[in-house]
């Protein structure tokens, strides 16, 4: 008898705690749902609901503004804008599987090819002819423009201008040798040159991407990699890549960099702990939030000693796309048109992104964007991050061998071989 009671108690306890535990997760996840149900005012006209999914939790307030304004100007349209908490890919696939697919969603350039059969062709939209050259390649599949590029970002080395001045450095380095000299000077002045967050696979992906962006015929090289006629070790700058990786650790956190993540990095860089980080324009808001007076700039990654190859990687990094089988295809297109027509207000001022349209102007966003614009004007840019054409899964998987290399448990040759194995495996799966 006692056993029975005991079992009932145990079961209630487990169910209650487990469910509330999962509740807590849900409510923090659901935090991005910015749909203001109160604005519905139960209209008599037929209301349609536009389901949008995308952006990141930091945009919650901006999204609220945008959604509110759009609904105010478009009676009869409700916008249900969901911001995924972290793993957007999982949520997106789940919503498609559940038949709750969003009308408009958000994809990175590398994901567009895989999703292409689900996406509406946007080539004839009014904004399409205004897309900057840096944004075109990443939204085009088989000649069709499938995405509304949200922003272009510059990918390079972010540096602290005050610390550079303190070490007596006047020009940013344009070759790998100069980069090393710069690090040396900083070190001599008692300043930690680098501080890389190699715990996050995304940054290792960016760094390895530099090697591909520098390849003269990048598309041709990737074709040959896929056919097996070329290998990772045949990348022209593969040795320089490892030299660069070594440099960031020898003059940075060393092996500990694989336990160092972006939150710590933002905090430390903003407070002047180190002078350089391999990052890009996406760091503007978090850095300025912590230190509004941070005097920083952005320069292109010098991967080789050929200064003419040192160009800033500038590409569109995120796109809105429209679900081809959406019930509200036309309304969805209208939403994107409206976003472009009012781009100066909502993209630049509210979302604070650098738009990928030639009829919008975003020089006011921050110091990193200012430097990016200088590179764009001088024509010294690559139009991609080098990572977009990798087989899916390659980007996350390479972080393991690269971290092992940094930790000193694998040699350069072993690492290159593993990178090659991952490429082959990912192609076959």
């Amino acid at each position, binding site marked *: 008898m006692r056993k029975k009671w005991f079992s009932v108690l145990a079961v209630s306890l487990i169910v209650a705690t487990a469910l509330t535990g999962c509740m807590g997760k849900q409510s923090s996840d659901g935090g991005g749902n910015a749909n203001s149900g109160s604005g519905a005012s139960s209209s008599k006209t037929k209301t349609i609901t536009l389901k949008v999914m995308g952006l990141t939790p930091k945009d919650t307030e901006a999204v609220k503004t945008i959604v509110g304004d759009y609904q105010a100007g478009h009676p009869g349209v409700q916008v249900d804008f969901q911001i995924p908490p972290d793993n957007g890919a999982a949520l997106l696939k789940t919503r498609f599987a559940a038949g709750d697919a969003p009308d408009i969603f958000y994809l990175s350039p590398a994901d567009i090819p895989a999703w292409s059969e689900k996406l509406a062709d946007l080539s004839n939209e009014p904004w399409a002819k205004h897309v900057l050259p840096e944004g075109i390649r990443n939204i085009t599949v088989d000649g069709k423009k499938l995405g509304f590029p949200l922003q272009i970002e510059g990918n390079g080395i972010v540096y602290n201008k005050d610390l550079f001045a303190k070490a007596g450095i006047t020009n940013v380095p344009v070759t790998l040798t100069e980069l090393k000299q710069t690090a040396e000077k900083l070190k001599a002045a008692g300043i930690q040159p680098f501080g890389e967050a190699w715990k996050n696979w995304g940054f290792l992906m960016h760094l390895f991407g530099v090697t591909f962006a520098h390849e003269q015929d990048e598309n041709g090289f990737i074709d040959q990699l896929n056919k097996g006629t070329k290998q990772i070790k045949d990348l022209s700058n593969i040795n320089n890549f490892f030299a660069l990786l070594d440099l960031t650790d020898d003059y940075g956190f060393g092996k500990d960099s694989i336990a160092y993540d972006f939150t710590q990095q933002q905090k430390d860089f903003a407070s002047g702990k180190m002078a350089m980080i391999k990052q890009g324009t996406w760091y503007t808001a978090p850095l300025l939030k912590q230190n509004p007076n941070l005097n920083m700039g952005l320069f292109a990654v010098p991967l080789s000693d050929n200064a003419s190859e040192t160009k800033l990687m500038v590409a569109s990094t995120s796109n809105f796309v429209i679900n081809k089988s959406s019930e509200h295809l036309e309304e969805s297109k209208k939403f994107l048109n409206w976003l472009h027509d009012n781009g100066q207000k909502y993209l630049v001022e509210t979302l604070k992104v650098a738009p990928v349209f030639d009829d919008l102007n975003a020089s006011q966003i921050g110091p990193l964007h200012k430097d990016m614009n200088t590179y764009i004007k001088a024509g010294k840019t690559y139009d991609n991050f080098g990572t977009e054409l990798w087989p899916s*899964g390659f980007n996350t998987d390479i972080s393991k061998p690269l971290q092992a290399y940094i930790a000193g448990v694998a040699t350069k040759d072993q690492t290159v071989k593993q990178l090659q194995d991952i490429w082959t495996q990912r192609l076959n799966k």
Partner: protein
Amino acid sequence: MNKQIYRKSLVYIAFVGPMLILFLLFIFLPFIRSIIYSFQDWNGINSHTHWVGWKNYRNVLTDTDFARTISFTLKYVLATVIGLNVLGLILAVALNVGLKSRNLLRTAFFLPTVMGTVIIGFIWNFIITRLFPQIGELTGIGILHSSWLALPKYAFWAIIIVTVWHTLGYYMIIYLAGLQGLSHELMEAAEIDGAGRIKRFWSIVLPLIRPSITICLFLSIINGFKSFDINYSLTMGGPYGTTESISYQIFQDAFSKDLFSYASAKAVIFFLILTLFSVVQVAILKRKEVEA
């Protein structure tokens, strides 16, 4: 006679049926579908798929990542099962004697279980990477000086510590409930017969709380094999993939790498391993259980 059998089976169906139907709909059928996917090449997105036979399984068997993940998960289960059950039982016993602040203490130990894992990952990341070295400096304990999340061996223990910290409360409560169900008469009789504290614990308390032990072991093993949250929020599987649990890797494959079929094949293999494990475990524990 026939009527009685008929009625009996009707009652049986009425009681067991609802659970079974829900189970079939939401667990069994989906899993069958996963098994079907594991023989296809679905990436989680496309509407068209092809049959690929045993290809996914062959690839899993040659995947060194998968082997490493299995070995990590087994070690993780072993360490957490021992940690949670030993500590949980010790705590329960200590909190079952008449301490003044026992209710407060019980609440304190239970509190971590209600925290969300995202915030746990964030705060423990800070404690391990920032506070540990500082404490190490103050106390001169060398081990705290190492960069815990950069070294596989330490990262493993970091995950164990956080898991135990997070879920110890459950196990403590279940053991406590078991201890409170013990009859006073029995304990007194044993004391009069001259059994010492330790002897009483081993010969009377432990056998009588066997149901709690069964449940706790069962839960800790199952939860250990399914571990996902802490790996995700504390180490992200790193350094270099050494703390990737099976669930974590399957999730990554299915959702981040667009390899849904491949992930399904991993899940099926994992399921087969674990089924074997559970059946053996339950069979052993069930035989040893004592009714009070």
